[in-house]
């Protein structure tokens, strides 16, 4: 077939990716050539660069769908929204990571951290915008491989090395399964273009197998039960800022992509994937809760919390409606600010107390560091879904999305699990406010970046839920699904 590739739309449709590549190149060159003075302002420089990047791309334009390279790359305004949200999350992670990156043993890896992080972000962007399984897979690998380096960036620490190994091995395993699934698709449908595949999906046994294999690959990234086992070890071992990036940005991008692919490509197999998600949701929420209640390490604790949150996010996916899509993006946004607030506090405490991350270390934190304790509390309240914080509204919307599609029992199970989750979230609050401690973590002052990021996150936790404009604004674009 004679195929004429049209490059005219590259600049309009791909401007987000192109500008991100530019950012990466600038960061790389800066790292290579900056002098001593220049390295001192590397951190603010990167934050401002990210800010400019976000500002340039925050309004999704053009406001209509587009495609490039014969449909390999798709552009939709709603993708632009999601990409902006991910970029904002990345900026917040950058803001929080200065204390860690200023340590003697890590300061020379500062540039690596930025470049690797942004590379994974670029991978997620391609994954989101993919219109072909090959593109999708390359994007996903680009989002995964640098991530493994990030996890193991403190490679001389035993924990970090172990975490990196577990991450990359599980990632390989899941990638293998996923490729296997994709090969079945090619065998049955004869194409890997999303748009052509949709009509050739008929729910045959082979396609069911491949659906499950494909799903396992993304389930690994979202860390759904039973593909979650790497999560706790990796979260615990990785540097806290990497963990927070992993738990929010990587997860959010994968969840969104999963929904897009399931709805767009597997529309004909909706009953099959709804059943599959049903099982996985029940497992994820319940099992993660059961593990979370007995964690003594806050990073591990938040790992299980994030697995259970992933289960909630799947509630939005299972609805398969535009309303569900809106709720998903909204949920990811709010989960992002709350989780980044929690990790920001943990990271700050860790850096200023010589690496303390245990639940018992937090006893009496309110007495010495009231602002951090309150921030943590509000973040956990939002994660638990207590009104009037944003998390309540996001939970409400995903429950409503699933309920409208008739998943009444599932919503009920999720509700019971919300009650259980309240227990362990409040355990942390209890430790900080009530449990007496003779030698609590002494008072300290966080660096400016962390403070800014925490204020941003708290503002999000307090405001996004009440400002109906946010949900409506996302909804405006999601109906193009």
């Amino acid at each position, binding site marked *: 077939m004679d195929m004429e590739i049209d490059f005219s739309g590259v600049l309009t449709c791909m401007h987000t990716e192109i500008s991100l590549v530019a950012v990466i190149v600038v960061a790389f060159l800066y790292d290579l050539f900056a002098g001593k003075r220049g390295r001192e302002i590397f951190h603010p420089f990167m934050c401002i660069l990210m800010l400019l990047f976000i500002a340039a791309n925050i309004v999704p334009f053009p406001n209509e769908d587009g495609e490039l390279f014969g449909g390999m790359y798709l552009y939709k305004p709603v993708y632009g929204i999601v990409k902006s949200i991910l970029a904002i999350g990345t900026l917040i992670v950058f803001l929080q990571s200065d204390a860690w990156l200023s340590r003697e043993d890590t300061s020379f890896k500062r540039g690596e951290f930025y470049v690797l992080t942004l590379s994974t972000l670029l991978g997620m962007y391609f994954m989101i915008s993919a219109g072909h399984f090959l593109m999708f897979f390359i994007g996903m690998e680009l989002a995964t491989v640098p991530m493994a380096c990030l996890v193991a960036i403190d490679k001389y620490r035993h924990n970090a090395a172990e975490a990196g190994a577990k991450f990359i091995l599980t990632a390989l395993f899941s990638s293998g399964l996923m490729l296997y699934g994709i090969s079945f698709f090619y065998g049955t449908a004869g194409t890997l273009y999303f748009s052509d595949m949709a009509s050739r999906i008929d729910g045959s046994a082979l396609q069911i197998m491949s659906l499950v294999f494909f799903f396992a690959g993304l389930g690994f990234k979202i860390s759904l039960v039973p593909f979650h086992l790497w999560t706790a070890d990796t979260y615990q071992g990785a540097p806290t800022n990497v963990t927070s990036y992993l738990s929010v940005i990587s997860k959010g991008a994968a969840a969104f992509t999963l929904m897009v692919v399931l709805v767009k490509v597997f529309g004909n197999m909706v009953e099959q994937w709804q059943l599959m998600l049903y099982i996985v949701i029940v497992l994820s929420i319940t099992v993660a809760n*059961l593990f979370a209640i007995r964690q003594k390490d806050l990073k591990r604790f938040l790992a299980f919390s994030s697995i259970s949150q992933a289960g909630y996010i799947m509630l939005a996916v299972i609805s398969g409606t535009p309303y569900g899509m809106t709720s998903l993006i909204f949920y990811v946004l709010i989960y992002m600010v709350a989780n980044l607030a929690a990790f920001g506090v943990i990271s700050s405490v860790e850096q200023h107390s010589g690496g303390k991350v245990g639940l018992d270390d937090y006893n009496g934190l309110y007495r010495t560091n009231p602002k951090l304790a309150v921030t943590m509390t509000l973040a956990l309240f939002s994660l638990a879904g207590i009104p009037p914080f944003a998390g309540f509204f996001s939970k409400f919307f995903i429950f409503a999305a699933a309920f409208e599609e008739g998943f009444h029992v599932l919503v009920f199970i999720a509700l019971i699990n919300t009650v259980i989750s309240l227990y362990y979230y409040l355990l942390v609050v209890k430790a900080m406010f009530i449990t007496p401690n003779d030698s609590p973590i002494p008072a300290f002052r966080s660096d400016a970046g962390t403070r800014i990021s925490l204020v941003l996150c708290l503002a999000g936790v307090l405001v996004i839920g009440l400002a*109906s404009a946010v949900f409506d604004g996302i909804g405006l674009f999601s109906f193009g699904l």
Partner: protein
Amino acid sequence: MEYTILILLLPFLSFILIGLLGTRLRPVVAGAAGTAVTGLVAVLSYWTAFSYFAAGRDASGVFPTQMPWNFEWLPFGGSLQIDMGILLDPISVMMLVVISTVSFMVHIYSFGYMKGERGFQRYYAFLSLFTMSMLGLVVATNIFQMYVFWELVGVSSYLLIGFYYTKPEAVSASKKAFIVTRFADLGFLVGILVYGFYTGTFSFSPDAPALGAAKTVLPLALGLMFIGGAGKSAMFPLHIWLPDAMEGPTPVSALIHAATMVVAGVYLVARMFPLFIGYAPDVLHVIAYVGAFTALYAATVACVQTDIKRVLAFSTISQIGFMMVALGVCTSSDPHAGGLGYMASMFHLFTHAMFKALLFLGAGCIIHAVHSNEMSAMGGLRKYMPVTHITFLVACLAIAGIWPLSGFFSKDEILAACFGFSPVMGWVMTAIAGLTAFYMFRLYYNIFWGKENRELHTAHTPHEAPKTMTVPLIFLAAVTLAAGWIPFGEFVSSNGQAYHIHIDWSVAAVSLCVAVAGIALATWMYFREDRKVADSLAEKFSGLHKAAYHRFYIDEIYQFITHRIIFACISTPVAWFDRHIVDGFMNMLAKGTECSSWAIRYIQSGNIQKYCIWFLGGVLCLAVILLLVF
């Protein structure tokens, strides 16, 4: 008129600032900030009123309703949505003026009254919160926004009644006020939901098809809403919280429990008036009977109370009864044929707010001087407190309905409306008006004349209040003197068209005679130092006197119903169910969670090979399940 948003934002900001900074602010600064903001709000309100009425009537002869602000806050799908905004029409503009004026006076007055109190800053923060909520209530563009601010008003009232939170009486009074009004608000909420469900909108004026569809349930919805109004406006039998609410600081009583919040119920009925007239006239008449009974009941009780704030509280209940009656006796929306009561009610609301605030602030000066609420600690105070005395007398004359003070004009319109409805109603209300004159002058004589409590007064000589307290008195007295001459009907009337007030002299003559008779009786009984007549009457009718003194045992009946019936027969079994069945289920859930959590901990072994096995096992299980099902 976009600047009207400032009327809400300014007090809100002041609440946030004073509340957050708290004791870090010097008391004077907090007070001055709150007062300055309220003063600014008052100026803005006057300016709004001026420009609104100056803009003139439209082609159909009414002042057009304006919404300078209205945005969609919460859509529910379909046409149902909750908006937030600002609505300007004659009654909301009138209320803006009333609230901001009284609030400003109370802010100034509190400088003197609350001087040196612990929590001075907190007091001003709460006052700002209340002012914002009350203003938001009256400018609400829809019934739901009104409800939101209605509850905010309830909260601020609760906070201010319980301001002296170390006093057990104040704490229980604030709880009582909150619970009773919340209980009534339940009716309001259900009414709103019924209304919203059947008309498909929360707007005050749904379009004709929506109303047609909801015709049969509108009386129910409006009746339920009135329950909420009755709670806030202390209508019998939901009035029990108001006398206790007097435990709060006196300026708060003046602002919240006399002039503004307690008339919210009246305002609600007035707001829904077109619907009441069009679709639920019977409910309107029920409101009239409830109002009349409340007015009579409260006036009777007020005759024998000895705590001066309680007398004023019951007098407030009685006067709100008058306003409700005036609305309730309307039979059409034409002020010339059965719709006079609407204008009369709003007029009385306006004049009453001024003179009742004046009475309360005067009472505050007196309490400030003698450190007691009891009449026995007073007597003969006129020579110590000349300004308070004169202004108090002006207010008493106004509430008694003596020409040419403001109360005369508004009460006359109410009585005329009642006579237009039925002669019986007219005569009953006239008699209550006489009773009003009597108990107010009993109060007046007991405070300022009669036998002086020399023992107390030599130990601590009463003195006139400071300027910050007397200036508001003088201002309000001036308003009371002048307000009757406002051509109120030109601004507010039931159908919005100009209504020229004309005094019905036959009604006026009768009411004047009754008022004078009431004053004369009070003079005969209480003017002299010995109270022979009063005492012998009290002895002769000791049963009645005692019953009235104990407010006809309504509180005791409530006590009996709540403790003996509700607590014993319903709450105890429910509590047992809660403790054993509900908690039991929760404990079981917790135990089950704990056990299974313990049991599955080996999955997370830390061994990567095992992880992969679980991973693969999970994938295959999922695939098998799906293959079996499909």
